[in-house]
């Protein structure tokens, strides 16, 4: 769905339409996909582009997401530029093959409309799907807005295919909240897009019978660790490539992208660390409190894997109290992944800030400005007492009255 006033001006696009449009502009060689809510319309719109001849892409309709990612791996090993889209159970079904894609160092780009994992079955936003894949060797970019999701697709291609990296990238945007909301987007031109992503020339191809290669050979005790070391070094290097590609994107198109977004953080005493669309809601609370003279701020990681640990430590080191808000629970009995990562990052900081973790908005439960304000209230009272009351807690939720009065939304 697109409401365009003028080709080079702003368009009103849903997150999924914007992502599909970016993928069209990239014009990948192969697009294997199995549609799943809430990323269905990415696949639907992209397949329309294929049917209309707007792209040269080979669209492969598969029987499951396991097959979708397997086809991505095969096509990428054949030297193709490959993209796909999924959500939730779809990503979960891809799991086994996600590790194969990263281990084989195939620069596949996947867009995930973040959605809760079953059970209970739920189609709405949380980050349990991609967070479960955080150790899969993929690079993870989380997008706050439709514009950012659109811009991230182009950058993901460049990051994935960078010779120092050669790893798959997933671009995450919040299910329904961002995938289905219409926002103003300033697209880039088709030619500019092509120029930015450039042509992909794979080092070797399964289809090159003059230069036969084996992909997916066994590597036992000795060599296995060599390849994992190479992979580990490559994902570390991805951080600099994300910065470099972000800079080039900014020079060309005027929108700034780094490892994370710092919002009113310079002189802040307390801050919230939070991913994706909920950061927008939190910024409204930051502004309200700043207007009341409170020194509050926000840090929104964009690159989550690899974790830009030194840079996050540097950005948070002057703070007194930090709250990490996770839209998923690791079920470790010790909070969410963002909390655990950021807490670990802060360990190296001298006079490190106090930190607590809050779990919010699971399965699409609403997170409003008042909820963000309540977190800041907790932060400010911790600042006063110098003591964290509760290290980890569920918010946007009252354990004494877990459902709203009429039970709606359950």
């Amino acid at each position, binding site marked *: 769905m697109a409401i365009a006033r003028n080709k080079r001006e702003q368009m009103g696009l849903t997150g999924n339409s914007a992502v599909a449009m970016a993928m069209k502009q990239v014009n990948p060689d192969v697009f294997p996909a199995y549609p799943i809510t809430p990323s269905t319309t990415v696949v639907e719109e992209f397949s329309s582009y294929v049917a209309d001849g707007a792209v040269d892409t080979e669209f492969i309709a598969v029987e499951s997401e396991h097959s979708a990612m397997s086809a991505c791996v095969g096509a990428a090993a054949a030297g193709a530029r490959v993209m796909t889209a999924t959500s939730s159970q779809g990503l979960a079904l891809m799991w086994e093959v996600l590790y194969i894609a990263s281990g*084989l160092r195939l620069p596949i780009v996947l867009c995930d409309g973040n959605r809760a994992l079953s059970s209970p079955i739920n189609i709405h936003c949380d980050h349990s799907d991609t967070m479960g894949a955080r150790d899969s060797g993929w690079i993870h970019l989380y997008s706050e807005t439709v514009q950012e999701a659109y811009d991230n697709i182009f950058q993901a291609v460049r990051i994935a295919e960078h010779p120092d990296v050669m790893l798959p990238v997933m671009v995450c945007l919040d299910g329904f909240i961002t995938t289905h909301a219409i926002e103003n987007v300033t697209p880039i031109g088709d030619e500019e897009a092509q120029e930015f992503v450039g042509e992909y020339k794979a080092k*070797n191809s399964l289809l090159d019978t003059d230069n036969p290669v*084996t992909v997916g050979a066994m590597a036992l005790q000795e060599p296995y660790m060599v390849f994992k070391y190479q992979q580990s070094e490559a994902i570390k290097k991805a951080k600099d490539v994300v910065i470099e590609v972000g800079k080039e994107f900014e020079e060309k198109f005027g929108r700034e992208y780094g490892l994370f977004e710092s919002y009113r953080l310079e002189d802040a005493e307390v801050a919230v660390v939070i991913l994706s669309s909920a950061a927008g809601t939190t910024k409204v609370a930051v502004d309200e409190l700043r207007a009341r003279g409170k020194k509050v701020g926000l840090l929104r990681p964009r690159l989550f894997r690899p974790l830009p640990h030194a840079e996050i430590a540097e950005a948070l080191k002057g703070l007194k109290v930090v709250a990490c808000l996770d839209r998923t629970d690791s079920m470790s009995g010790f909070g969410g992944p963002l909390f655990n990562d950021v807490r670990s990052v802060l360990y190296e900081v001298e006079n490190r800030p106090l930190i607590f973790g809050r779990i919010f908005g699971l399965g699409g439960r609403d997170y409003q400005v008042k909820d963000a304000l309540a977190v800041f209230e907790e932060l400010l009272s911790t600042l006063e007492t110098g003591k964290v009351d509760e290290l980890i807690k569920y918010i946007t939720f009252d354990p004494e009255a877990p459902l709203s009065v009429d039970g709606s939304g359950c």
Partner: protein
Amino acid sequence: MSDKKSPPIGGVIERGGTAHEYTTGGWRKFKPVVDHEKCINCLICWVVCPDSAIIAEEGKMIGFDMEHCKGCGLCASECPDKITAITMEEEAD
């Protein structure tokens, strides 16, 4: 691995036919033995052998490549029932 210091990323083997260098003959517990009197040269064994260890020349079953034959017995069980030209014999230890 072509270069011991930095093997190709992703574990890609950058040349063909390397399976030949990996001898699976050492796995063998039973070895196939062919009776050329019975054999009708249908070459079914050549088709089914997972290690390309059946040596065939000019449409004739010649014997086995014992460097690669792993002793799975597929050739013996797929040799037509009326022929049964291949038998599996225990390897001498």
